[in-house]
């Protein structure tokens, strides 16, 4: 295994980390309209991710930075090619971050309501668009001999990628509902569990269709295993949720995300962005990567820093391990 293969795996790990963590953040954002009955319940939901959402989002920045450093051509083609969807994601993430921090800073009803709308939409849109983006990467897009994306925005909107978007949206919302049932107490806990079951069924139908489509059109032995793990974990997550075992259910909805993302990366390898025009123009781990020297430095840095990050981020979850309910929300702002 060469260093650029290691980095292919590490980039996959970063995206898995991002979708696992911000997956439930996005889900919580969507649930503020789907589940919460009043402002107090909205605030309970938002506060379950309050101390952690910012750290979760850094997984995205790290995935971006690491792609830039390890696969500059991939970074360049992807972000210049998927220009407008990415722009929309960035604008959503900007508004969303500010919404979390500023919503409670004024007591006017209109101010708070506006930010609450913002939290819902800016969680829902990226949750959908990330699926569209990754489905397109796997499907292959119009890349020319100079490794430039030459398609248009409308080339990115096809049945397969839109289905991919629906899968991430429902999967993240399900993951979020399970997370809410794990982190809250009182009435909202019961309702989030009931909602999670229904969301789980919808997710299962969509995910099964998408994953089978992926497997049939471009899968191999490895991706098949990942797919089976993803589907089994999803079914088990729904089962544990029904049985009221919230911790297990959450771990398994997390494994679903991890296995599904792993499956997409397995179907890609050794490509990082296949060209739909000509196989010779695929971006691969070799023609898109940095020099071994740069990759070696990056490997050292990741080897030291990444375990530390997981350690102190994990500690944060432990510090804020207590469930919260409406009684824990002060009126102060």
């Amino acid at each position: 295994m060469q260093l650029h293969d290691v980095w292919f795996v590490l980039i996959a790990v970063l995206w898995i980390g991002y979708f696992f963590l911000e997956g439930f953040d996005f889900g919580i954002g969507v649930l503020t309209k789907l589940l919460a009955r009043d402002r107090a319940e909205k605030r309970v939901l938002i506060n379950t991710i309050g101390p952690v959402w910012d750290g979760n989002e850094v997984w995205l920045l790290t995935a971006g930075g690491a792609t830039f450093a390890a696969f500059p051509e991939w970074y360049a083609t992807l972000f210049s090619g998927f220009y407008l969807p990415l722009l929309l994601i960035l604008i959503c993430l900007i508004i969303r971050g500010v919404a979390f921090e500023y919503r409670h800073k004024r007591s006017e009803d209109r101010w708070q309501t506006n930010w609450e709308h913002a939290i819902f939409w800016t969680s829902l849109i990226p949750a959908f668009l990330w699926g569209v983006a990754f489905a397109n990467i796997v499907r292959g897009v119009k890349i020319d001999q100079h490794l430039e994306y030459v398609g248009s925005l409308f080339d990115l909107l096809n049945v397969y990628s839109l289905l991919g978007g629906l899968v991430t949206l429902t999967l993240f919302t399900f993951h979020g509902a399970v997370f809410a049932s794990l982190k809250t107490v009182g009435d909202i806990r019961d309702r989030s569990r009931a909602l999670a079951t229904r969301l789980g069924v919808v997710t299962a139908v969509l995910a099964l269709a998408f994953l089978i489509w992926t497997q049939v059109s471009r899968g191999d032995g490895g991706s098949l295993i990942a797919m089976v793990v993803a589907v089994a974990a999803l079914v088990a997550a729904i089962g544990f949720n029904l049985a009221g075992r919230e911790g297990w259910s959450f771990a398994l909805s997390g494994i679903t995300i991890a296995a599904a993302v792993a499956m997409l990366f397995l179907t890609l390898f050794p490509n990082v962005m296949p060209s739909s025009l000509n196989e010779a123009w695929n971006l691969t781990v070799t023609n898109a990567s940095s020099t071994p020297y740069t990759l070696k430095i990056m490997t050292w840095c990741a080897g030291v820093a990444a375990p530390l990050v997981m350690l102190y981020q994990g500690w944060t979850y432990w510090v804020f391990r207590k469930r919260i309910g409406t009684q824990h929300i002060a009126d102060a702002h």
Partner: protein
Amino acid sequence: MDLALAPETLARWQFGITTVYHFLFVPLTISLAALTAGLQTAWVRTEKEKYLRATKFWGKLFLINIAMGVVTGIVQEFQFGMNWSDYSRFVGDIFGAPLAFEALIAFFFESTFIGLWIFGWDKLPKKIHLACIWMVSLGTVLSAYFILAANSWMQHPVGYRMNEERGRAELTDFWRVLTQDTALTQFFHTITAAFLVGGAFMVGISAFHLARKKHIPVMRSSLRVGLVVMIIAGMGTALSGDMLGKVMFKQQPMKMAAAEALWDGEAPAPFSVFAYGDVDKGHNKVAIEIPGLLSFLANNDFDSFVPGINDVNKAEQEKFGPGDYRPNIPVAYWGFRWMIGFGMASLGIGVLGLWLTRKRFLLPPGLRTGEDEVPHLVLFKKALSPKFSQLYWLVALWTMCFPLLANSWGWIFTEMGRQPWVVYGVLRTRDAVSPNVSQGEVLTSMIGFTLLYAVLAVIEVRLMVKYVKAGPPELTEADLNPPTKVGGDDKNADRPMAFSY
């Protein structure tokens, strides 16, 4: 294509707008994180309530500010790929690594520990909670270092070789990229300038309250901290600026010649106080100068030769082929002056403030004030009249903006002064843009970001004003009795959280 709307021009405007805007929040974040941590340390060590109230007050303003810094920073991470894909392909092997280091080391620090700090008042023992804000502060400083190392490589590329076959620059010595003198002096200069922003911010807001005789104990201490920080940081900025200038005279003579509108080399070379010139003809029409000073700034020698714009342009034409290698001279010239002018003006107002509010030194005993009194402003032997006192408080309030303007102009100067290069001497800006991104797409994103940023600026400033006016909060029982174990004491399971969104 019309030059004014060429993708290169639009992409540069977008980069300029988003980066200058982002950098309004960055220096305040860097300095306020450390200052808040310092105040909280004073609380933990002395247990004086005024320090805890100060921590909460400045901490709240810090949070309003850092929220904007964080979200506008996301754009920076992806903008290179979106608008500057050829740049990314060309430099990714070198430039990507510090960016990845920044995310992996600094951003995780900042974002994780800020969550712990915001929500941790009733969840963490006092000292661990204090350690969290120090970790945030460390994160902000590390972040600055890595991104400045990356920028320094664009100013002065080192530790690389050209791979002609793949048409890109490749890293050969990462240690040199991290430790070259450009990176170290830029870091020194940027950090000191950041603390000048934070010091002036504290002074301005303290002055606002002291002029109204409100929240005196907290604001009196804050004023003093702010003034001292402002003066040390101001002197540090001047010193590091001089060092950086000397580095730039060697590495980018064109930038410094443009900064001085020095058209033709001279020995000794004068420092320009005011100039009005004709860019096409390559000379000044009006010039007021201090003889020899530029030679000294460049080389520590009043008689040395400093090359002019026309000389460097000719030399670069011989080296890189025909073309115009001059940056926008008026922007470089005035940017340089606004940077120094606003920076040094704030240092001056800080020095004046520290002298006027001195506690004992050469102060008539009758004019000394207690901790809960507004300090008298004493020039020599007598306190200033109420009218002049109010005037100083007002000047101090508006001085808040000066270091921010100096920071912005500093960046505009150093980035525009490097043109037409994006990586000096290696890659031209026009060869760095994304070839496949249309004019419409860049225009959409530029307008989108600009409008969004404008709306957010209004929201942010109004929120800041609201919390500035509200003053330091009253302390609660819970504030004064922090938990003794991690996760919080569970005396009352239904007690509301100390802080919630």
